[in-house]
């Protein structure tokens, strides 16, 4: 991180606390995204035929559940200033392990444990290279992105491993009676509460923010950086495994390319939700709104007869616009506080 950026930070922080409470809560990136989400929902509800029915939510939630799950640990990792590009490959590998174990007649319980252990191991591999060897997470997880997917492809090749027990599938996929909400969302809500509590209300969470803001300062104030990061990558592997198992159950088949490409959807949603890629800034409610925003825009556009092309353009533009707007506002603020002040060089990746 550049010195000039660090030098700006106290200025901003003082201003934040100088504002009244309601402003601090309402006028944030997170609230802007939530507002946009509500707006999109209302507009689509009124103007897009077919969107108003309960089917919209009933269809959307199972399709975004995997992204929602992985977005939780991803948020924490990005807040520390690291990144995990291997999540979708971990999910795919865990799904394949789940399928193989289940097929081998070990029983669903054992298969679950095996798949979760695979996820933990994958996360530990990332964590080892990043915290023990000291390599940049971007490079490591590009490597493990290829490695974990390659292992999944190598293990099953062209085989289709499917036919999971119906009870297991319905346990995850059935809707809560009287609502359009599938059971997996219950698990997500529980996990989201845990993650939110840890990140926003515990010393450990403040440590995570501290690492992202300035890892040296964090180290001197007693945050165990390596251990924290290692744990976060292990948790990321574990939750990715849960998402991978869910995905295999949902499609009722473990294929080598299950969830391929999901990492980009997750990261796009996390950044759209207001988490800074430099670390040190972000909140989980924004991230969840980001996932849902991309999901609702997608279903509204599809219902309006537009296909995948327009949806990916909108996703891309939303992402770029949201970060450019944030950066622009920060620049305006700095300009107002430091008259004629010019911000320093662009930061690192």
């Amino acid at each position, binding site marked *: 991180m550049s010195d000039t950026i660090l030098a700006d930070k106290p200025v901003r922080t003082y201003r934040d606390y100088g504002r009244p409470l309601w402003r601090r809560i309402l006028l944030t990136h997170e609230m802007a995204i939530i507002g946009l989400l509500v707006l999109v929902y209302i507009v689509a509800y009124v103007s897009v035929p077919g969107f108003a029915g309960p089917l919209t939510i009933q269809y959307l939630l199972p399709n975004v559940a995997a992204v929602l799950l992985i977005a939780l640990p991803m948020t924490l990792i990005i807040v520390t200033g690291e990144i995990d590009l291997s999540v979708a490959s971990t999910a795919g590998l865990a799904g394949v392990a789940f399928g193989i174990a289940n097929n081998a007649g070990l029983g669903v319980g054992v298969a679950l444990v095996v798949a979760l252990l695979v996820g933990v191991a994958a996360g530990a591999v990332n964590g080892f*290279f990043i915290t023990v060897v000291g390599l940049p997470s971007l490079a490591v997880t590009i490597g493990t992105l290829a*490695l974990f997917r390659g292992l999944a492809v190598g293990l099953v090749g062209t085989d289709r491993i499917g036919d999971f027990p119906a009870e297991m599938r319905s346990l995850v996929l059935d809707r809560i009676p009287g609502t359009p909400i599938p059971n997996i969302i219950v698990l997500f809500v529980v996990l989201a509460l845990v993650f939110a509590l840890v990140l926003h209300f515990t010393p450990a969470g403040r440590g995570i923010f501290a690492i992202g803001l300035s890892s040296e300062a964090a180290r001197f104030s007693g945050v165990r950086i390596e251990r924290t990061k290692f744990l976060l990558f292990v948790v990321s592997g574990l939750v990715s495994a849960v998402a991978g198992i869910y995905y295999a159950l949902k499609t009722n088949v473990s294929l080598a390319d299950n969830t391929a490409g999901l990492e980009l959807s997750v990261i796009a949603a996390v950044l759209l939700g207001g988490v800074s890629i430099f670390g040190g800034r972000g909140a989980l409610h924004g991230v969840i709104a980001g996932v849902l925003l991309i999901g609702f825009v997608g279903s509204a556009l599809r219902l309006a007869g537009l296909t995948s092309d327009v949806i990916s353009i909108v*996703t*891309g533009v939303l992402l770029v616009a949201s970060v450019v707007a944030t950066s622009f506002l920060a620049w305006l603020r700095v300009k107002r506080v430091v008259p004629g002040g010019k911000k320093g060089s662009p930061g690192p990746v």
Partner: protein
Amino acid sequence: MNPVLQRLTRFVTARETGILLALVIVVAITTIVNPRFLFSGDGFRDLLLTPSILLLVAVGQAIVIITRNVDLSVGSVLGLSAYLTGRVFIDLPWLPWPAVFLIGILFGGLLGLLNGALVAFAKVPSLVITLGTLYAFRGINVLWTGSDRINASDMPTDFLALGTSALAGIPYLTILAIVVLVIAGWFLRTQRAGRELYAIGSDPSAAHLYGLKVTQRTLAAFVVCGALAGLGGVLYAARYGTVNSQAGSGWELDAVGAAVIGGVAIFGGSGTVWGAAIGAYLLLTISRALPVVGVPDFWQGAVVGALILGAIVLDRLLALRTARRLRDVHARERKEVTS
């Protein structure tokens, strides 16, 4: 030490030499298993030809990574440019065919300019911006192409021949790629602007305070990267003869992977385009070699992943060794001064 020996020592200890050695070993083993991998007309041609386009994209990617940025949109830029090439042949048949190169390069440069402007002026991290444009450019491509596809019959045979034929056994594409590589390598090594890219990547703030034109140089790096991806798109059309809306998807990871394998540090400031180029060759040659040596097709991805991890671990070890040596040298000097 005599200068020849000195140069030799530098070559042997260079980071790129290790990767080159790995490449030679891979080719050697594969050729021993099946001599046709190297010693047949098509074998030799494909060995050179297959990685040529990725080489161009990887060189552009390396330049951007050296400035401590990354361009994830190269695959989408390549796809758009490839389709544009086909459209130009269909819609402007009177244009002499070499003009498509200019159009492709300019078009790619323009898209690179957009990326660069968003990164350099809006001060937004390149990872986020180019992730966004990765989606957006691909979406535009699908929107524009629809179910259409460019077929070989839509393009002049001279142009297509460029994609597959060779001059004295060396494919035209490879010659072109090497020319670009040499120019980029020379520029980065000897020119002031090239050296400044390293300075910016090593420490953006220091470069800024020192008075380097950080914004301008960053912008230029993205334009060059886009232009090379654009050129790659034109060559893609020539090599493969058909272009649909998915041309080049997934190339971003190959390009970044090639640069990283070739020793370009992901956080900028070190590495060479030579390394990235050898990385591109190693990456694609390994993929082609595995089935020949009897490793099933399916394990390719795992090997590539292990290779990337191995390369960055190696880099880390080399960096630690260099740091230790510098510390030793420093300590010795201090001792000499005090004694």
